[in-house]
């Protein structure tokens, strides 16, 4: 059940209305049932997997405080993590492992199996397994009390707004709110209007921008060998826009749906394309995952309080695993490594760059300097996205090679750009929508206000006008219905 489907349009109001009717104390049980139904709409069988992960981490959480010996505690933690990662490996990475193994050993005429086991990737598995592991580590570190109520804990793992594409919630945030759910009045005015506004904004970003630019991106990436520099750059920049709007759109709808139900999910995006360095980008992009890797992997590995070499090692390990988390494909690992390399190179060249700036008397606090940093960071990020989007590393290299060798500036002027799946009116709609997105992000960047906070400060005519305009734009210009197949959210595959 996609957020941008008629099914969800019926499902969500029913969930909210029944929440109003059901006694407060039973509300979490209703949300749990609704969450499992939501998940089972994709594949009913995999509800058992969700249940297994929930049971494993719930029991580990209960058992950990009772372990008196440090060894037993550690053994419990490691067993629980390995079991969960084992499930993740089996369902997500086994085929990759098998194919790689066979490719390496094929010269020795040795192979494990002819082909993969044709395992369907359970939707959202990486999200709920990471969230559950995070909970167990938090309990291990005594940062949170274990949840005794199995149903409440099950709701923490399966809460439907964030179940299939995050954010990867922290027990300190979500579990604490679920514990307070009995005592909170439902449908608080600010929560409902704010939540619905967030949902409308998320749907606008997903259906009007991401799904529209996806048409161009898919055209270019599927037949990259036919196109020159201009089209390939359009495809590459288009993908940066697509993946941001797709994932940010999902996270915003999730946050909105949760807020209507009285739950505040953590922010997952904070204007990442305004970042002035790659490390800043990772503090603003997919925040829940970045902070998860920071807290549960990078810092335990030693973080940056160690030798320079060890620090770079930690960065490369973290970023490559982050890449692997994003997809069971070596091109995703390459994408992660590229980001690791950017950070290492940035750190290594920092003093040199500072010297150059000083010798040139560069005004490092000026708008132009900041703009140059933002643009260069974006270009680096976008270059890496090519590896993320391409089907393989070799295709990514071929794509990049064509960008630099098939120079065709005339196609920018002769209308060829309008043959990439989006004609002139579609480009016009895209341009206006992206301008709106830019303004909303700019407000967030400058004023530290999200769209709801900004609108709440405005006059009623502007507030209503903006929301109605966004909703009408979704209905008219959104990519849905018969003519276009609604594309799934990109991050569902993780």
């Amino acid at each position: 059940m996609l957020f941008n489907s008629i099914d969800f349009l019926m499902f969500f109001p029913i969930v909210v209305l029944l929440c109003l009717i059901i006694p407060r104390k039973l509300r979490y049980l209703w949300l749990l049932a609704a969450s499992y139904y939501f998940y089972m709409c994709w594949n009913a069988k995999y509800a058992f997997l969700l249940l297994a992960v929930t049971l494993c981490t719930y029991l580990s959480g209960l058992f950990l405080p009772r372990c008196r010996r440090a060894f037993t505690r550690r053994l419990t933690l490691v067993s629980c993590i390995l079991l969960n990662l084992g499930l993740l490996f089996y369902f997500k990475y086994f085929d990759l492992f098998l194919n790689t193994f066979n490719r390496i050993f094929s010269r020795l005429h040795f192979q494990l199996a002819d082909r993969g086991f044709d395992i369907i990737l359970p939707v959202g598995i990486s999200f709920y397994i990471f969230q559950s592991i995070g909970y167990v580590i938090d309990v291990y570190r005594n940062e949170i009390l274990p949840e005794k109520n199995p149903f409440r804990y099950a709701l923490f793992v399966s809460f439907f707004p964030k179940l299939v594409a995050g954010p990867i919630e922290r027990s300190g945030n979500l579990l604490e709110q679920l514990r307070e759910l009995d005592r909170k009045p439902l449908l608080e005015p600010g929560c409902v209007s704010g939540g619905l506004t967030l949902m409308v904004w998320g749907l606008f970003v997903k259906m009007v921008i991401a799904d529209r630019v996806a048409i161009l991106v898919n055209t270019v990436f599927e037949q990259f060998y036919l196109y020159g520099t201009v089209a390939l750059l359009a495809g590459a920049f288009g993908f940066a826009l697509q993946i941001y709007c797709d994932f940010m759109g999902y996270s915003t709808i999730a946050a909105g749906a949760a807020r209507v139900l009285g739950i505040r999910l953590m922010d997952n995006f904070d204007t990442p394309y305004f970042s002035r360095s790659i490390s800043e980008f990772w503090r603003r992009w997919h925040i829940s995952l970045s902070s998860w890797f920071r807290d549960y992997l990078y810092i335990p590995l030693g973080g940056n309080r160690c030798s320079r070499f060890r620090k770079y090692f930690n960065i490369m390990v973290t970023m490559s695993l982050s890449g692997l988390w994003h997809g069971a494909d070596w091109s995703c690992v390459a994408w992660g490594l590229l980001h690791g390399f950017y950070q290492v190179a940035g750190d290594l060249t920092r003093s040199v760059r500072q010297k150059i700036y000083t010798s040139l008397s560069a005004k490092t606090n000026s708008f132009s300097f900041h703009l140059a940093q933002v643009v260069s960071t974006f270009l680096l990020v976008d270059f890496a996205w090519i590896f993320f989007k391409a089907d393989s590393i070799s295709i990514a290299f071929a794509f990049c090679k064509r960008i630099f060798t098939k120079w065709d500036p005339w196609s920018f002027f002769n209308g060829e750009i309008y043959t990439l799946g989006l004609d002139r009116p579609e480009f016009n709609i895209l341009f206006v929508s992206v301008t709106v997105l830019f303004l909303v992000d700019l407000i967030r960047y400058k004023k530290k206000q999200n769209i709801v906070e900004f609108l709440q400060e405005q006059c009623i005519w502007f507030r209503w006008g903006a929301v109605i305009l966004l909703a009408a734009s979704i209905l008219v210009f959104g990519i849905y219905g018969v003519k276009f197949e609604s594309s799934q959210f990109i991050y569902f595959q993780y």
Partner: protein
Amino acid sequence: MKRKRALQSILFCVVFLIVINGIYPVLSWKDTGGDYHSVFDTFYDLDGDLVDVLFMGSSRCYCAINNSILWNEYGIASISLSISGQDLASTYYCLVEALKTQTPKVVCIESYGAVFDGYEVIGNLYRNTLPYKLSPNSYEAAQSIVTEGNPLDYWLKWPIVHTRYSELTRKDFETDFPAYLGYSADFHTEPIQNTPLYTGKEAVPTSERNEEYLRRIIALAKEHDISLCFFVAPYAASEKEQKIYNYVKQLAEENQAAFLNMLTLDDELGMDVQTDYINWFHTNYFGAEKISHYMGRYLKEHYSLPDRHGDGRYALWDEDAIVRQHEVQNELVLRKTSDMTDYLTLLPQLDGYTVFLSTDGKYISDNSGTDVLEYLRGLGVNEEYYTGRHIWIWEDGQIIYTSPDTDFLEYGDLPGAEYALISSKIANSVLIDRTSHRKTPDGINIVVYDNVLKEVVDSIGFYSIESYSTIR
């Protein structure tokens, strides 16, 4: 505080619905039998209990039955809820929809729907599902008619029609369309090869689904005490199709419904395979004229139908007759006239038109022997003007504008369009909706705008250098 919040929420929803309600008519599907011809729009605007005869069926029906002939000659108030590709299931749901507001005395169903099943053309599926208003009947129609894709999309319409944003034209934003009762006049002629008439009694059953809906139509008509008349408009039907019509005939007669097989009435109708068809299974304007006269006589003879002429509630039928008359005049008179003197003689007789005439370049021929000045004088052009380069406008045969001697720029409105007249030392130009209609640099240019159909219906130039030869 809570009440204020609740009121605000309700008000917000109302405003939102008003906005959406304003957008929907723009995006809505406006085609049941050709671009921007939706008989459902006419139907939903009708007052209740006006229609005496309801025609239904596929495009063969709206090509064969000219409602304006039934009105002009027999005073029959009819409407054709016929839609391209309409199958019998769609006919049934259309009938249910029609009976919500109308109580026709006779329902005539063109029976081509009995020889095919379902929809191969997606456009026809849209035409048969999207014009409905939201109701349980339209929901059931979508569920029954749509076999591929999600019927809910077709019922809600938005998932389909919203994609029209990229194809919107000026007509989508207009609300004032010429009257349309379902008949689509087509003047194209293509000789066809008629198939042998099957005179045997053998009857081949129609599909189970078609029979089910035939029976449902019959039952519905009985329930509402409506006379049913199944008919087959002339075309080159195959033998198998004719046997299926025999089956429909049996079914009709078993249920006391009339069956009029026009395939057997070529002589009575006077159909001519050389002149009366658009293609092998659609009749053109000339064929429709013959069929409609026959149908009018048949209906008058067999059913008690009142003559509605003079009844103020039937103004729409009068408007429709004028529209159809304009279509005929434009196609068979105006566009068929090529000789300049004939054309100039015709112009003063045009009622309901705005005519733009411009003289340009060397517009007086030196060697043609045609006294163009005499004809212009005959049109009421002042002599002191017609030796210069000018533009004149006639409305309903009367001059309403003469351009000045100097360079000029004039612009104004027509019903459903705007015009601009531009004159410089180089040329004269008449622009209707920003499109220039200048055909010749030397001679006379004429643009005829139909104020009823709200479109340019002819644009012609007479080239003086070559003896006022015609350029269209």
